[in-house]
């Protein structure tokens, strides 16, 4: 069984902030790191690889790929593949998925491709869907566990308030759940050891132009809310509480 994991490099979410004086998103101090949600995908892949006595390869496309792959190596990847192409700098989720699927196919395909649920930057969660389409693979989302049972897979996933199990055939794209997966800690020592693993740099062999989602984004703006600062009035505590709940119901919050 051949396993692949697709990861992304994102600006360190803990260091991204809105600069209210310059009115722009300040990512200057936010070095590229492994997308946090991708750790869940790596953990699932590592678990399945261990159970089936196989290995897994990790693919990352675009800027900062090396930093993300170094962190991904901690999870025991066999190969680390950084996909380079100037077009990736402006590629959206559809373009990134095309680059990843092209590289996976170039390496002989994969039975199971793992992805994180969404990136900390765009947060769209679209890559697994695009990947499953271009790889003509099945798709499971919100997955917390996956096991091999003969030629098939048994997948446990979150479906609203329930955990459910379903069988799945390969090839399969799995989007790991954002929670419910025990992920190992990445210590500096592990990171240092893993950093010795070589990163293969491959050039994208995809005909121009890369596909796109068809959406155009405007400039980023602060999402800071203007607060109402409204003190709820009423003759007594009960009346005030009822007024508040009415206001929340009006805003469809409760």
């Amino acid at each position: 069984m051949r396993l692949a994991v697709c990861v992304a490099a994102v600006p360190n979410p803990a260091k991204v902030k809105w600069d209210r004086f310059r009115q722009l998103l300040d990512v200057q101090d936010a070095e590229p790191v492994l997308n946090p949600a991708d750790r869940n995908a790596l953990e699932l892949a590592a678990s399945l690889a261990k159970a089936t006595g196989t290995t897994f390869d990790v693919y990352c496309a675009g800027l900062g790929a090396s930093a993300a792959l170094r962190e991904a190596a901690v999870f025991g990847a066999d190969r680390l593949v950084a996909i380079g192409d100037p077009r990736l700098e402006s590629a959206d989720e559809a373009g990134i998925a095309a680059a990843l699927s092209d590289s996976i196919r170039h390496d002989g395909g994969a039975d199971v491709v793992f992805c994180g649920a969404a990136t900390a930057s765009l947060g769209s969660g679209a890559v697994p869907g695009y990947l499953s389409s271009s790889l003509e693979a099945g798709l499971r989302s919100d997955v917390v566990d996956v096991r091999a049972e003969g030629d098939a897979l048994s997948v446990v996933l979150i479906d609203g308030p329930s955990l459910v199990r379903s069988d799945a055939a390969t090839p399969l794209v799995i989007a790991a759940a954002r929670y419910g997966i025990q992920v190992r800690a990445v210590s500096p020592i592990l990171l240092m050891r893993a950093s010795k693993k070589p990163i293969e740099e491959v050039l994208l062999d995809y005909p121009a132009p890369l596909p796109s989602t068809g959406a155009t984004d405007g400039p980023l703006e602060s999402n800071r809310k203007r607060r109402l600062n409204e003190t709820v009035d009423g003759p007594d505590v009960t009346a005030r509480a009822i007024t508040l709940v009415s206001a929340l119901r009006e805003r469809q919050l409760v």
Partner: protein
Amino acid sequence: MPVTVDLEKCIGSRDCLNACAFNAIDVIDGKAVIYENCVDCDACVRACPTHAIISATPAEAAGGAILVVDFAERSGINPIVDRTARRANANAAGVRVDPTDAGAASTAIIQEAQTNETGLIVLPHDGAGSAVAARVAAGLNAALLSGCSDFTVDDAGGVRATRLRYGGIVKTSSRTGPGKTVVTLVPRGPAQFAGRPLDAGAPAERIGDAPSPPVELARIVVALSPDLPPEALEAGRAIARALGAETIDATALPGNALSPELYVAIGVAGSTEHNAAISGAGTVVALVADANAPIAQAADYLLVGDVSAQAKALLSAL
């Protein structure tokens, strides 16, 4: 512009101006004026005492039909989708699909959209929604607007949406051109969804309860001060249960900012760090003893008085 003002009915009450969270409306010479940055949230429509502000998006612009897809009754995209469907007049159809096999769910949605010549497909940006939406978009060769907090159909038949980025720190206005579009919408509010079931294969076997999401992903958060008296703490926890919310110790907020739809702070004075951490929250409610507590500046709604009594009253009102 999807929202229009009937100038004859407008009395310049300014209720719309107060209701608008986007500074997208003003009252000039006694009449409401809608600006370009209107995100079509309809707050002004609801606030207008004379019904002078009207939602009027042309249904035809959506390319013939809107297909609203939900995975369950619980997702809560309905308040926004219902409005879109209302504006779409005819040809709006709702379907429910089991997302367990996301590939099969995508195929079923694609077939449904092709059968009904759907121009716009809306899914929840939750659970399997984003992955299914991308696969549907690829299958239909449609544009994809994923992670929208709101959207509207423009006069040219494209879709305009507000999308949050970087965990909700920033937002962007996105648009697609005319043609098929798939939208995923961040769920908002509890609602029931009465869609026709769509066959997407055999249902999966339920094996237990899903784990609780971390507080960073919770839709509603109730923050409790550790200094609260026991009866207020108990009422606060009961409020959280009633709201289906996650509770958190207000003095131990996580490193990442919180951006729940609703944040209820009980007995929390609101330090600078605390207030900064909740700046991305949709609506902030604070129950405090002191009207001059710092959280007053960070709150939308403030209940001032004995916190225990207020918490109990709020629990009863819910």
